[in-house]
């Protein structure tokens, strides 16, 4: 063991003495870490961007429609659905009726609503019943401010008590006015709900349907974005696969370059290995010399590569753990790369090596 350790330290001294070979191994190690991390970071960033885009397009949103109201769905169903562990939020809307701000004014559809969504921000100074208008519906009605009074289709007045902003998957209701009414219990004709995970949309939709309490036989329609989620799954798989392939290519290229560099160094110094055998080195000790000669520049260079990669990534989502893992992998690659030339050295005929001019 002491002899092996001693030969390993000799390998480190050889690495310090053979500056060109060590510098090449160091540069390759840095390049491998930086390239692999960059490739993975690009893949992670692309994956994240795709997820964001799909999210915005409603990949997790399930829409339930009972256009005729025959299902007699109560607002309590929305509470039940929102209470599901795999549902982020649920909001429901009732039948639509027109309202106008003045005689001959442009009508705007208004409907009662129930529930909460981060995509629906309500600003109502009072908890009393009344209408909420969006910027768009307010303009359509001809209201300068979200205040005043409108008339419903029966001619009855309704106060305008506040405003709302709808975005994301609820953006379409920006054209409407919403009726805030804590006494409203249904019927609900339209429900939008968001599953916590895209992969769950199918099962969430089925469970939500069972919680509707709709009249049997009514024409309930569910819009489930399964195709969108399938596409996301495929994209994720493709991006992860291409990211891994890029990392693997960087590591394999590093392995080949490091191995070739060490091999070239060994071939040019065959006589040194013959001399080492004459001085009492065993085959195992020669392997230790070559491995240590490779790892001596590879370890600090991989660490330097990690620092360079971390400093150049900026806002990328690639984590520190991943960078450290890539650095460790690069050291392992260098170790693997050294084994072929080390085995070559161990098998050299010492007599022939000593005769190399």
């Amino acid at each position, binding site marked *: 063991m*002491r*002899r092996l*350790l*001693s*030969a390993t*330290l*000799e390998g480190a*001294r*050889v690495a310090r*003495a*053979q500056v060109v070979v060590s510098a090449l191994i160091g540069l390759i190690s840095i390049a491998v870490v930086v390239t692999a991390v960059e490739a993975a970071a690009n893949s992670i960033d692309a994956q994240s961007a795709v997820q964001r885009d799909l999210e915005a397009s409603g990949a997790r949103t399930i829409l339930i429609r009972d256009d005729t109201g025959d299902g007699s769905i109560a607002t309590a169903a929305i509470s039940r659905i929102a209470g599901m562990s795999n549902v982020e939020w649920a909001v429901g809307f009732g039948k639509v009726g027109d309202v106008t701000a003045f005689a001959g004014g442009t009508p705007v559809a208004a409907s009662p609503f129930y529930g909460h969504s981060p995509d629906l921000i309500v600003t109502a100074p009072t908890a009393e019943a009344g209408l909420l208008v969006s910027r768009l519906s307010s303009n359509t009605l001809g209201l300068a401010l979200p205040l005043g009074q409108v008339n419903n289709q029966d001619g009855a007045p309704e106060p305008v008590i506040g405003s709302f902003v709808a975005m994301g998957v609820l953006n379409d209701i920006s054209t409407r006015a919403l009726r805030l009414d804590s006494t409203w219990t249904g019927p609900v004709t339209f429900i939008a709900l968001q599953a916590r995970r895209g992969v769950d949309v199918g099962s969430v939709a089925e469970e939500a349907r069972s919680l509707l309490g709709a009249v049997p036989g009514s024409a309930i329609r569910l819009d489930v974005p399964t195709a969108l989620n399938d596409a996301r799954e495929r994209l994720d798989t493709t991006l992860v696969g291409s990211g891994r392939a890029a990392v693997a290519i960087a590591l394999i290229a590093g392995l080949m370059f490091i191995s070739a560099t060490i091999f070239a160094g060994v071939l040019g110094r065959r*006589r*040194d290995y013959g*001399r*080492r*055998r*004459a*001085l*009492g*080195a*065993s*085959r*195992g*000790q020669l392997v230790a010399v070559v491995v240590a000669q490779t790892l001596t520049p590879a370890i600090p260079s991989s660490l330097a590569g990690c620092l360079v990669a971390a400093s150049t990534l900026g806002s990328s989502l690639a984590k520190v753990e991943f960078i450290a893992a890539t650095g460790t992998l690069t050291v392992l690659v260098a170790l693997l790369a050294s084994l072929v030339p080390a085995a070559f050295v161990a098998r050299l*005929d*010492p*007599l*022939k090596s*000593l*005769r190399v001019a």
Partner: protein
Amino acid sequence: MIQMDEVSFGYRKDDPIIDRISLCAERGTMTALTGPSGSGKSTLLYLAGLMVAPWSGSIAVDGRELTGLTDLERSLFRGRNIGFVFQDGCLDASRTVLDNVIEGTAYSGEARGAASEAALLLLERLGIDVDPHRKPMAISGGQAQRVAVCRALLPNPQIVLADEPTGNLDDLSAKVVLDELQAAARSGVVVVIATHDGRVVSRCDAAVELPS
């Protein structure tokens, strides 16, 4: 004493370069191996140094049979008991003179500090006037060969095997190197020299001529 009996060896199957050669070299003597180029002088020397195992025959040192040793056992024996001197010194140009002299300690596992001190004393005792911290490129061929002799003698070997140690040296440098090898022999070391240099043969106690 090194005793080789009926030793055969070759690089190609059924084509022995050494064919049933015997050699006996006593402690305290310097023996020359002579013969024409290609006769196997160097090969016999490296066989004696246990660098390779012979096809047949036996090799013994001080009565201990060494032919059946494993590669690891041969390496251990070589590191502790045998010193080699090569034709042109065979120093590592990327290391200092001192590093070259103590290189064997890397494989014997001995402490470098103690070996460095011993090496400096040996360089001084042999009168090798070179800066031990310089690279071999900065010293002459004669000095390099003397450094190689110093490296061979550092572990206090029982045997010193020299392969054409004066091949590239002028008369004065050759004389100095031979003086050092002869001094080692006189101190009880078995010295065997493969050579075709008449200056060497004339200084040796015995000569063995290999057939062509």
